[in-house]
């Protein structure tokens, strides 16, 4: 810490784990998002965008994407599938399960909300998921994923509830096991060899937002 920092603390040094109280009317902390607006703008290029949501169903998000953007939304709660495998004690079968999980035809989904799912998966499951998502994602489609940078071992998932283009409410709920190890950027990129990183943001709450894009004209 420099002498200058001691004299005039930087504004960015506000504890990022403490959300802005004024922005959390419902008790859940509200965090800003940089990538969501870009994800939305990529969807609006389509006439009838098809969206795949890998998280638990959230009524606000369904209304947001369905009513505002006219998306057709597929809700596939992979967190619930993961919990079911953990409780059944057959996590070794999870990669194979993920490989056949998505019944959507190849190259038909214009946007995928992966949330922070990959943080909760082991390496083999993450790779199986990435391959399956790469298959269904249409060319010029985008995938939004969050990755933590701070090691957290708490056994809980997060529901990401969209407030608007720039803010999301984070609602924690219990998980069957703890979050897995944090992935470095290099390994994240290796998961999606067919996709390009179009945008990447490091937020103050130690979350990386990465927007992947499948290059146009890339059939699978």
């Amino acid at each position, binding site marked *: 810490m420099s002498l200058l920092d001691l004299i005039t603390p930087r504004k960015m040094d506000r504890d990022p784990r403490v959300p802005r109280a004024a922005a959390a009317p419902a008790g859940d902390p509200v965090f800003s998002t940089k990538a969501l607006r870009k994800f939305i703008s990529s969807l609006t290029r389509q006439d*009838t965008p*098809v969206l795949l949501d890998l998280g638990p*169903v*959230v*009524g606000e998000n*369904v*209304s947001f994407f*369905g*009513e505002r953007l*006219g*998306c*057709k*939304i*597929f*809700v*596939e*709660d992979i967190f619930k599938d993961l919990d*079911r*495998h953990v409780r*059944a004690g*057959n996590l070794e*079968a*999870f990669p*194979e*399960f993920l490989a*056949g*999980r*998505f*019944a*959507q*035809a190849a190259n*038909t*989904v214009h946007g995928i909300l992966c949330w922070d799912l990959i943080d909760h998966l082991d390496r083999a499951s993450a790779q199986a998921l990435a391959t399956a998502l790469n298959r269904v994602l249409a060319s010029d489609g985008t995938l939004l994923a969050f990755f933590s940078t701070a090691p957290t071992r708490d056994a809980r998932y997060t529901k990401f509830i969209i407030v608007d283009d720039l803010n999301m409410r984070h609602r924690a709920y219990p998980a069957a096991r703890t979050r897995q190890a944090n992935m470095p950027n290099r390994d994240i990129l290796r998961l999606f060899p067919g996709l390009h990183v179009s945008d990447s943001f490091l937020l103050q709450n130690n979350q990386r937002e990465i927007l992947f894009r499948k290059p146009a004209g890339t059939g699978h």
Partner: protein
Amino acid sequence: MWKRDQAVQPPSGQPAAPPSPAPTVATPSPRAEASQFLERDNVNIGKSVVIKGELNGSEDLTIEGQVEGTIQLRDHVLTIGPNGKIKAQVFAKSVIVLGEVTGNVTASEKVDIRDKGSVDGDIISPRVAIAEGAHFRGSVDMQRKSGATAATTQPQAAKPATAPATASQPSPQQQPAAAAAR
């Protein structure tokens, strides 16, 4: 000076309407209550009732029992009660789910999945509300035009009831959703 009288005069010289009498609130008798209930056109299918086949109607319906097949209430509200278990294609003006639905739901106005309500299937409706604590698996299509047209088309054969997904196999419930995506 203040033209107070003009402010209360009706336009174009019409005489002012006489003040309406204060509304009187009459206490309904039990018989009147019963007739009001019947006038509401709401029919209940009780807990112990099991229906297999096609269910058509032209009045609002509440299902607390089990129905397998097809339900059509084109211009009316279908309510699946907390004890209701539906394995059917559903077509209605508005659908409120408090129980379990397995099958596609098409509504010309709104689908409302309440807390502890469950839908496994595809929803086509211009408005969809999903409460916190509700279960939903499938797709949501809120395109106004497709919702309206789909509600007026003849239903296809009812989607077969599916077994709950096993721990390592994807549910066959996803197949129609995939076909829709194509």
